[in-house]
């Protein structure tokens, strides 16, 4: 069930990137799109009856900590992409005066 919700988020993100013409909204769509993949990684790391993967004395079943580390790396990549996209948007705004993709006049 959670996987279905996750894929819905995935498709919503993809739809926003494709359909919106405002560049900032596209960046937001990209973030939603990437976040849905992070949630997928956490969903697959849950072990039945497991606690968060921090060693404590009286627990023996832990959830898988490896996907958490993978997500950390992917979040860093996502932040770098977002900041690069925003820097490009600032330069586009300086140069063309608008951030609507339809209104940018290349002629």
């Amino acid at each position: 069930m959670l996987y279905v919700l996750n894929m819905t988020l995935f498709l919503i993100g993809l739809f926003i990137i494709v359909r919106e013409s405002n560049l900032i909204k596209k960046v937001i769509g990209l973030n939603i799109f990437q976040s849905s993949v992070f949630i997928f990684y956490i969903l697959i790391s849950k072990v039945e009856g497991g606690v968060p993967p921090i060693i404590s004395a009286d627990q023996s079943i832990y959830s898988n900590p490896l996907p958490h580390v993978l997500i950390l790396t992917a979040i860093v990549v996502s932040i770098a992409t977002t900041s690069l996209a925003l820097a490009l948007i600032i330069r586009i705004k300086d140069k063309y005066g608008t951030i609507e993709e339809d209104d940018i006049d290349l002629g």
Partner: protein
Amino acid sequence: MKHHTVLRIVTKLIIPLILLFGLYIQFHGDYSAGGGFQAGVIIASGFILYNIIFGLEVGFSILSINMTKNLMAIGVLLYIAVGFMGIIQGLNFLEYNSLLSSSKEGQLLGIFLVELGVGLTVSNVMILIFYSFNNMGEKL
């Protein structure tokens, strides 16, 4: 925003706590949730909050743009230097066992230094992004 009294006083109370929390997360990376990247972002957000409330000039006088770039480079160099320590002693890259006397202490020191490098770089990257978004149009 310096004239908003409430904001000013609350910021002065909260920023030390934010920085302390960032340091806690930095050094507990291998024991509980945390690590270099999360700590870097939290420390940077404390600094950025200070800049927002008290003005950009104060921030520039503490941490200029050149200093930020230098600290970024030093963070990455620290990481790679720890990695090369292993190669110098004949083992593989990023092998922490060789750093200190016993294998367990070597692992702890290796993780500590590597996370320190990561935290340094990430916090300066975030602060530099904040500075450059505020200097839009001017030279960095």
